């Protein structure tokens, strides 16, 4: 899937320069680091994801959960208030539970580890949606609802009755460009790179800051790592 509809040359030079993945090993395993200390919960990454990938209204490939019980509301930890966010999209697991259960191999891991979804093969049984522990897959339940009467994305829209999800913006990876959620983050809370290269920024951050995987105990081995906030900002209660 993800038939690209616009060439990389169409992007302004400044955008291309800012979006370069940079040096990677010859055999990259793409991964992402999300710095929860930097994330301000603004949903910019979620919005640009929708326009980049032409995700219809009511569907989101990317969302920002608030850690706690209520949206954008602090929670009390050891008598102090604290608030941080959990930006959540496909975790591109090393051991994905979705690809195993797909009856037609419409979802599969690419050579570089990106978990893909083939909309032309998918039969819409939604077994992958059941199997995913992160709730990040979205199904085309009806005819897509769009704010415009033309397609807006950089990739082809998906047909009704099939599954879709975050692709790490494979159409951008092909041109050496980072996913657009990483590109657009105003707090630079998202970092993208090669996990196979021990000197890449993602590898270093995971090592130095103690990157954590979401629901690590399930053994899915995500390639998205979260950097937990180091300091507690004590707000007076």
């Amino acid at each position, binding site marked *: 899937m993800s038939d690209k509809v616009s060439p990389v040359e169409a992007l302004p030079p400044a955008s291309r320069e800012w979006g370069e993945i940079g040096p990677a090993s010859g055999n990259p395993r793409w991964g992402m680091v999300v710095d929860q200390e930097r994330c301000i919960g603004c949903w910019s990454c979620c919005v640009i994801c929708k326009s980049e990938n032409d995700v219809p209204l009511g569907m989101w490939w990317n969302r920002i959960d*608030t850690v706690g019980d209520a949206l954008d509301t602090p929670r009390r930890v050891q008598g102090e208030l604290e608030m941080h966010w959990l930006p959540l999209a496909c975790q591109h697991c090393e051991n994905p*539970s979705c690809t195993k259960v797909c009856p037609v191999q419409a979802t599969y891991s690419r050579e570089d580890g990106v978990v893909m979804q083939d909309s032309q093969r998918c039969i819409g049984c939604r077994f992958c949606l059941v199997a995913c522990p992160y709730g990040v897959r979205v*199904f085309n339940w009806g005819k897509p609802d769009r704010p415009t009467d033309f397609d807006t994305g950089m990739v082809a829209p998906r047909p009704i*009755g099939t599954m879709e999800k975050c692709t790490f913006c494979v159409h951008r990876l092909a041109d050496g460009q980072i996913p657009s959620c990483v590109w657009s983050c105003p707090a630079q809370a998202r970092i993208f790179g090669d996990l196979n290269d021990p000197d890449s920024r993602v590898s270093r951050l995971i090592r130095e800051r103690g990157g954590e995987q979401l629901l690590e105990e399930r053994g899915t081995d995500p390639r998205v790592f979260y950097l937990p906030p180091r300091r507690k900002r004590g707000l007076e209660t």
Partner: protein
Amino acid sequence: MNTVASPATSAEPRAGARALHLWIALLAAGLALGLGAWVYQLMHGLAATNMRNPMMWGLYITLFMYFVGLSAGGLIVASAGRLFGATRLKPIVRIAVLEATVAVMIAALLLLPDIGRPDRVWHLLRYAHVTSPLIWDLTIVTIYFAISASYVWVYTRADLARRGSPLALGTGTSLVDARRDERLKGLLAAVGLPAAILLHSITAWIFGLQISRGFWYSALMAPMFIVSALVSGTGLMILLALIVRRTGRVSFKDDLAAYLGGMLAVFVAVEGFLVFSEVLTAAYPGASFEADPVRRLLTGPYAGFFWFEVVVGLVVPFVLLAPRRLRANVRWVAVASALTVVGILIHRVNIVLNGLSYATVPYPPGVSIGTVQPLGTTSFALSYFYHPSAIEYLVAGGVICFGALVFTIAALKLPLKEGGSDLAADAVSRRDRLAS
């Protein structure tokens, strides 16, 4: 005993015939409505259902596993009767295997409206992925359907041949044919029982192998599916046998119902034990992955379903069936059977609802619902209250009506009454015919 084939019950009472016509007309109407609803759903996509991303499977899958379970009674009774010598089950074997065939057919058909792209079902053959429990299940459902259909044929074949029916596929009524029947019955029993066990286990593994769902991820899933299938399958078989007996198309004594009722009591007891063991194991450590779903099961928005399952589906039938004096009364056996059939349906509902209806990452705003929501509401959900839409009820009802129609017509046309295929009787009747 004269067992020469008589043209089946042509002298049915008129009131019975009228009731039958009304019944068939009702089923046909249900089927037509269901087809109409399915066309509507095909036009609008699965948005016509109330399923959404936070509750991605609903009525169709629930009924799929329910009907897989209902098919258990037939084959297990037929095979076990043969393998372990429970000969008293003989009068109802034919109706039991017919029930199994129709139930598994209904189950398979229910998957068609559930998938988003019915036009791509052939992908299941073209791109079959061996690690998917869905592929395992479709394989065993196909095998199981073939076995049950063969069973129906082998058990009715001799009588069909006697009638000169083309359904006998050119086989005759000689002693050689009868001997081959016995061999085939033995063979079918030998493959039928393992196939039935596999069918229920694999259907359980669709759910039980998912690490994403604490309520499902349990090694007890397969044993529980086998036992709940035995409960509902036996319950339905007793009911159908009693109903068809009233039309005079099968005959057996009340003590057979009592015998089956005793079996059902044992199955219900084991099911109750497994449910208790499962809930206790999940709740005791108090770890949220497993304990949260159990808390929802016992006290959440769907808790009424669970307590209904326990009281109406397990406790009451057991009380009605366990004492010998009560189950000697056919009426109590019928009531208890009906309750187990409903109870296991609710058990299936509980499995799907409690497994799926909450976000696995428990932080707000939760999972993207997937369709545009009314202004002023959120398009995300942490937990999602699901109830089937009218379209889902109509489509599922249509499939069930179709199954009931097939069953009714088969029960009318096929020789269900035991007696003609008996080897000794066969030989006697042939000698009589030769002598005359």
